[in-house]
C-alpha cells in the first residue's frame, strides 16, 4: 500500500504499467470524497529526521477518513474497472450434523432472488482446482448430499445486482431457516489429528549435557520406531517413573483456553474483477498473506480442464483494518476469485459482523495437561505438558501453532527432564488460524498459572520461585537451542522488587472491604518472533528527484510496519523514505527465486522459502532488515561512487567508511557536502544503481553472501539481489558468491527461533456481589531490544494489554452448532475490552535496556498479550483464594465459586 499523494493520473500510469502495487490516492480517487481532504496534502510531514517519525506514515490518510481500507473502495474507485458490480453474498453452514441438500431460493420473493448462484456443482463441473499448499482439502463450497465438513463452511455464493436486494435476501435467509435445505441427521466424524504432532523430549545426560532435544538429533517421536525414538522413549519412561516415585513433589493440573475471535474492526471485505479481455483476475483485499492469496487464486483456475482461462492474478493490497492473524490465509480471497470468475462484472464481498463471527478465522481452543515434579530444594526437575489444540475443520496453520504451543510448553523455566506433546485435533468447528499469541497464549496461561499454584502450595513467593527456576542467559530452551531471550532474568528481578508486588499483602489488607477483595498476580513469559524460517523482501528505489520509495511484501495491519520500513533507509541513506508500498509480491518475481526445502547449492536463485505471511512480530525483528540491507547496497555500491565522481579525482580513495550524512548531505572531511538530490541526479546520469531489490532469509542467522556491482564487492546478509540502473525498468540480477546457506537439516541445528521476554503484574479488585473482576493497577515489563520508534512500541504494549484483558475476563464464544456458527453473534454478546476495563491511566511500563551482546530489535507485538491473562488469573486467586484453570474468568464464574 503506497501512502502518497498521487494524482489520479499517476495512479493510472502505475496501473497501466502492470504494477500490482496499490497506490492510494487521496486526490480525485473515484468520486472525490472530500474537497477539503485534498487540501491536506503534506507528504513528508510524518518524518522526524533519519530513523524517526513524528507520526505514522499512513497516519494522515487514516485520520482524515481517506480511502485506505478494502471496505472503502468500490469498483468505480478502481482504475479502468466497470462501475456496475455485483454484491456477493456468501452463505455459510450453521450445522454439520445434517445432510446439506442445497438451496431453496424459490422461497425468496422474486425481487430478492440472486442473478447468479455459484455452488459446489459449478466448481466440480468446471474442474476448479485446489491449492493443496495454502488452502488444502478443497470443498471451498460444501457439496450437497452430504453434511458440511465444518461449521461456517461456505455453501454457495449468490450474486445480486442491487444492494437493497442483497440486504433483503440476507435478512430473509437468516430469519427463514429453510432456504438452506437440510436432510437427514448425519454422524459427526471421529476425532482425528492433523500431522505432524509435536513431540519434544528433553533430558540431561550423565555428563550434564542435553541428551535428547529437538535440535540435537532432529525431532523425536517416542511412540514411533527408530533408535533415537527409542532413546527418547526411555526418557519419557524415566519421567513417568520419577513422577511415580517419592523423590519429587508432583503437581498435576489441567488448563483450558477457549475459542475466540480476533475481532479486528474492519469485517473482511474485498473487490474482484475478472477482466476477460486481458484474461486477468484483479482483486483488492486487506490481507496478511498476499503471496499465498495470489497463489491460491491462481490454483483455482490452473487445471487444464478448467474452462475459465485466467493468465494472471493482480492483487491490490489495501491496509487491513486490524489483522491479529485472522487475515492470514483467510479463505475470503478464494470467494472473491470464484465470484468474479462467474460474474460478468466486478463483484464486492463485504461481510457484516454477524458473518465475520460465523465464518471468520478463530483462535484455537486448547486443553493443557501439566505435570511438574519439584525437588526438596524447590527446583523443577520435570515438566510434562500434553496439549491438545482444537483446530476446526481445515488444517490451516494448526500444526505450526501446536508446534509453538509445544516449544513454549515449559515456559521460561529450566528442568532436568521434559516431555512435551502437542497435538492439533481436527474438529467440526470453524477454521482456526495464527491468531495473536500463536500457541504461546495457551501455553503461557497454563504454565504461569501452574507455577503460581505450586509456589503457593509450597508457601513460596511466586516470583522468588520463578527466579529460582528461571532460564538464565546462555541457557538452552527446551529444544536445546541456546535461545534464552535477553532481559528475561531482569524482568523477573524487576517484577520481584516492584512495590506493587512487594506490598501486595499489606495492600490486600488495606484495600479489601466486605464487598470487594484486592489481589495481585504476576507472570513472566517468553515468545518466539518470526517463524524460525523467515523470508523477507524489500526494494529501495531512489527517484531522479531524490525521493525514496520502499516496496515490500510486508503488510501494515496496524502494527506500524509501513512506518518502520519508511524509517529503515535512514541509517544508510541519511533520510527516511518518502513513499512506502506494502503488501507487494509480484514485483519481486524479478528476483526469479526458486523456493524449495531441498537445497540447491549451485543455484544462485535458490532460497528455502520465497515469502511468508505478515506476522506482527516479524516487522522490526525481521522485515526491516531487508529494507536496511537494500538501502546499504545502494549506499555502498552507488551513492559512494557517485559522490567520488562529483568530488573528482581527489576523492578516488574515499570509501563508504569515510563518508557520513549531515543534515541530508553526504559529507567527508575536506570535501563539499553534497545534497541528496544532486547525488540522485548523478546516479541517473552515470546509470548507477537507483534501486536495490533484496530477498533475505533468517533461521537463527541470516543467509549471507558476497555481491559485486560495478567492480565493488561487499558481503550482505541477503540471499538474492537485483538492481535497476538509472531510469531502466530492467532488473539486473546480481549472483551471490560464497554464500553461507542453510540446508533443511542445518536449519534445525541452531533452531531458527528467536525469542523475546515479557512480564506483567496486575492488581485487581473482585466484587463479591457481582463477581466482576476489575483491574486497578498494572505493570507491563518488556525486553524489546533496540527500539525503532518508542511510540509504536508503547502502542503495541498498550494494545496487547487490552487484548489480554479481554481474553482473560470477557471474550466468551460458544464453539458448537448452537454457538457462534448460528449467525447471530455480534458485539452485543461477544465483549472485548473497553477503556474502562484496562486501568489505562494506571499501567506502568518497564522496558529492559537492550542487551549489549544482542541489541537487535525483538518482535514483541504478540508477546505483549501473553503475560496478561496468567497475571490477572493469579491476581484473582490472590484476591479470593480460588484458582480458575479455564478462561475467560467471567463474573458468572466468579459468582459461582465466591459469594
Amino acid at each position: 500500500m503506497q501512502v502518497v499523494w498521487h494524482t489520479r493520473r499517476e495512479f493510472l500510469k502505475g496501473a497501466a504499467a502492470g504494477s500490482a502495487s496499490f497506490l492510494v490516492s487521496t486526490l480525485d480517487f473515484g468520486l472525490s470524497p472530500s474537497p477539503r481532504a485534498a487540501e491536506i496534502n503534506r507528504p513528508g510531514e510524518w518524518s522526524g529526521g533519519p530513523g524517526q517519525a513524528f507520526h505514522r506514515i499512513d497516519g494522515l490518510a487514516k485520520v482524515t477518513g481517506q480511502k485506505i481500507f478494502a471496505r472503502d473502495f468500490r469498483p468505480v474507485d478502481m482504475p479502468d474497472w466497470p462501475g456496475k458490480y455485483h454484491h456477493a453474498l456468501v452463505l455459510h453452514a450453521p450445522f454439520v450434523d445434517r445432510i446439506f441438500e442445497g438451496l431453496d431460493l424459490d422461497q425468496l420473493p422474486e425481487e430478492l432472488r440472486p442473478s447468479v448462484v455459484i455452488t459446489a456443482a459449478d466448481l466440480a463441473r468446471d474442474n476448479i482446482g485446489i491449492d493443496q499448499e495454502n488452502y488444502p482439502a478443497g470443498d471451498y463450497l460444501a457439496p450437497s448430499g452430504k453434511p458440511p465438513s465444518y461449521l461456517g463452511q461456505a455453501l454457495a455464493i449468490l450474486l445480486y445486482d442491487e444492494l437493497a436486494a442483497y440486504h433483503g435476501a440476507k435478512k430473509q435467509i437468516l430469519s427463514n431457516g429453510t432456504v438452506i435445505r437440510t436432510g437427514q441427521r448425519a454422524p459427526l466424524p471421529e476425532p482425528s489429528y492433523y500431522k505432524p504432532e509435536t513431540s519434544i523430549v528433553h533430558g540431561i545426560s550423565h555428563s550434564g549435557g542435553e541428551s535428547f532435544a529437538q535440535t540435537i538429533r532432529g525431532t523425536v517421536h517416542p511412540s514411533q520406531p527408530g533408535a533415537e525414538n527409542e532413546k527418547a522413549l526411555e526418557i519419557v519412561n524415566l519421567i513417568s517413573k520419577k513422577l511415580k516415585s517419592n523423590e519429587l513433589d508432583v503437581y498435576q493440573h489441567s488448563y483450558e483456553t477457549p475459542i475466540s475471535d480476533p475481532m479486528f474492526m474492519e469485517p473482511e471485505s474485498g473487490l474482484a474483477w475478472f477482466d476477460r479481455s486481458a484474461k486477468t483476475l484483479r482483486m483488492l483485499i486487506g490481507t496478511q498473506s498476499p503471496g499465498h492469496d495470489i497463489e491460491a487464486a491462481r490454483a483455482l483456475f490452473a487445471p487444464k480442464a478448467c474452462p475459465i482461462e485466467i493468465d494472471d492474478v493482480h492483487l491490490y493490497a489495501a491496509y487491513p483494518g486490524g489483522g491479529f492473524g485472522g487475515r492470514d490465509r483467510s479463505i475470503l480471497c478464494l470467494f472473491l476469485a470464484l465470484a468474479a470468475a462467474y460474474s460478468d462484472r466486478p463483484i464486492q464481498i463485504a461481510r457484516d459482523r454477524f458473518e465475520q463471527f460465523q465464518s471468520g478465522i478463530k483462535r484455537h481452543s486448547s486443553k493443557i495437561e501439566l505435570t511438574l515434579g519439584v525437588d526438596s530444594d524447590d527446583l523443577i526437575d520435570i515438566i510434562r505438558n500434553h496439549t491438545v489444540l482444537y483446530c476446526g475443520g481445515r488444517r490451516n496453520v494448526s500444526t505450526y501453532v501446536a508446534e509453538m504451543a509445544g516449544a513454549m510448553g515449559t515456559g521460561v523455566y529450566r528442568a532436568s527432564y521434559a516431555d512435551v506433546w502437542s497435538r492439533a485435533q481436527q474438529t467440526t468447528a470453524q477454521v482456526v488460524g495464527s491468531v495473536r499469541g500463536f500457541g504461546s497464549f495457551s501455553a503461557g496461561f497454563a504454565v504461569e498459572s501452574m507455577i503460581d499454584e505450586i509456589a503457593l502450595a509450597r508457601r513460596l513467593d511466586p516470583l522468588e520461585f520463578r527466579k529460582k527456576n528461571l532460564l538464565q542467559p546462555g541457557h538452552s530452551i527446551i529444544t536445546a537451542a541456546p535461545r534464552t531471550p535477553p532481559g528475561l532474568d531482569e524482568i523477573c528481578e524487576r517484577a520481584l522488587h516492584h512495590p506493587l508486588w512487594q506490598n501486595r499483602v499489606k495492600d490486600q489488607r488495606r484495600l479489601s472491604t466486605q464487598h470487594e477483595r484486592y489481589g495481585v498476580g504476576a507472570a513472566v513469559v517468553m515468545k518466539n518472533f518470526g517463524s524460525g524460517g523467515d523470508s523477507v523482501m524489500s526494494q529501495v528505489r531512489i527517484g531522479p528527484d531524490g525521493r525514496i520509495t520502499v516496496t515490500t511484501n510486508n503488510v501494515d495491519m496496524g502494527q506500524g510496519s509501513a512506518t518502520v520500513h519508511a524509517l529503515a533507509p535512514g541509517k544508510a541513506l541519511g533520510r527516511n523514505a518518502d513513499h512506502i508500498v506494502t503488501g507487494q509480491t509480484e514485483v519481486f518475481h524479478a528476483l526469479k527465486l526458486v523456493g524449495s526445502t531441498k537445497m540447491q547449492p549451485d543455484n544462485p536463485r535458490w532460497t528455502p522459502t520465497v515469502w511468508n505471511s505478515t506476522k506482527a512480530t516479524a516487522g522490526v525483528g525481521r522485515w526491516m532488515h531487508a529494507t536496511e540491507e537494500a538501502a546499504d547496497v545502494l549506499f555502498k555500491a552507488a551513492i559512494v561512487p557517485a559522490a567520488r565522481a562529483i568530488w573528482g579525482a581527489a576523492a578516488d580513495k574515499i570509501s563508504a567508511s569515510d563518508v557520513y550524512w549531515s543534515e541530508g548531505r553526504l559529507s567527508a572531511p575536506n570535501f563539499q557536502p553534497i545534497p541528496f538530490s544532486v547525488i540522485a541526479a548523478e546516479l541517473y546520469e552515470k546509470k548507477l544503481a537507483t534501486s536495490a531489490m533484496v530477498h533475505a532469509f533468517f533461521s537463527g542467522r541470516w543467509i549471507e553472501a558476497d555481491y559485486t556491482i560495478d567492480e565493488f564487492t561487499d558481503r550482505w546478509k541477503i540471499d538474492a539481489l537485483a538492481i535497476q540502473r538509472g531510469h531502466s525498468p530492467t532488473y539486473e540480477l546480481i549472483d551471490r558468491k560464497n554464500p553461507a546457506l542453510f540446508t533443511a537439516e542445518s536449519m534445525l541445528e541452531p533452531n531458527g527461533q528467536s525469542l523475546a521476554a515479557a512480564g506483567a503484574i496486575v492488581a485487581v479488585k473482585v466484587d463479591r456481589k457481582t463477581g466482576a473482576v476489575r483491574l486497578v493497577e498494572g505493570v507491563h515489563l518488556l525486553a524489546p531490544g533496540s527500539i525503532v520508534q518508542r511510540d509504536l512500541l508503547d502502542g503495541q504494549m498498550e494494545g496487547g494489554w487490552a487484548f489480554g484483558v479481554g481474553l482473560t475476563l470477557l471474550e466468551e464464544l460458544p464453539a458448537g452448532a448452537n454457538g457462534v456458527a448460528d449467525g447471530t453473534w455480534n458485539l452485543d454478546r461477544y465483549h472485548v475490552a473497553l477503556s474502562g476495563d484496562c486501568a489505562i491511566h494506571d499501567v506502568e511500563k518497564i522496558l529492559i535496556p537492550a542487551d549489549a551482546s544482542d541489541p537487535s530489535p525483538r518482535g514483541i507485538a504478540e508477546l505483549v498479550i501473553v503475560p496478561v491473562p496468567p497475571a490477572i488469573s493469579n491476581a484473582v486467586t490472590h484476591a479470593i483464594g480460588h484458582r480458575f484453570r479455564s478462561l475467560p474468568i467471567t463474573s458468572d464464574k466468579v459468582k459461582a465459586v465466591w459469594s
Partner: protein
Amino acid sequence: MAAIALNLTINDERFSRDSIDGDMRLNDFLCEEVNLTGTKFCCGIAVCRVCTVAVAQAPGADLQPIRTCTMPLSKINGAIITTVEGLSKSGQLHPLQAAFLKHFSFQCGYSAPGFLMAAYCLLDRLRRSPIPNSAVDAAIENAVGKHVCRCSGYVRYHRAIREVVLATPGLTTADR
C-alpha cells in the same frame, strides 16, 4: 420501504434526493450514495461506535454523536452532519486530528474516525458547558469509553483528547 424526500447537509454541502428509501441506514447513504467512506462500518448494531458522526438538528445547535449503522434516513432528515472528512478546515487539520497523529493514538486506524467524531462532540459540549480540569478524564471516558478499538489499548486516544481539551481556551475551568 417508505420513500422519503431527503435533505441533508454533510460537511457544509447540501445533499438532496427526491425519493429515497427512508429505512436506508445513514451509514449506507454516506458510503454508497455519496462516497464518504471515512465513516466506518463494524458491528452494524450500534455497539462499537466506529460509525459515529456529529449531528446538529439546526445551525448552531448542540452536536450529538450519532451511530450511523442503525440510524435510518427518515429519522435524520434535515440534519446537519459532520463526518471525519469534514473535520479539517482550510487545509488545516482539526486539533483533534493533529493530536491523534502526534500521540500515535491509533494503529490500524479503523476506529479512529469514530473516536474523532465523538471527541469533536465532546469539545462542542464543553464549549457550551465548561468543566473543571479535574473532571476532564471522566468526561473523556464518558464521551468515548464505549468506543471499541482492538489495536490501541485506548491510552493514546484519551491522551490526545485530553491534550486538546486542556489546550483549547474556554473548555475547562480551574479546579476550586
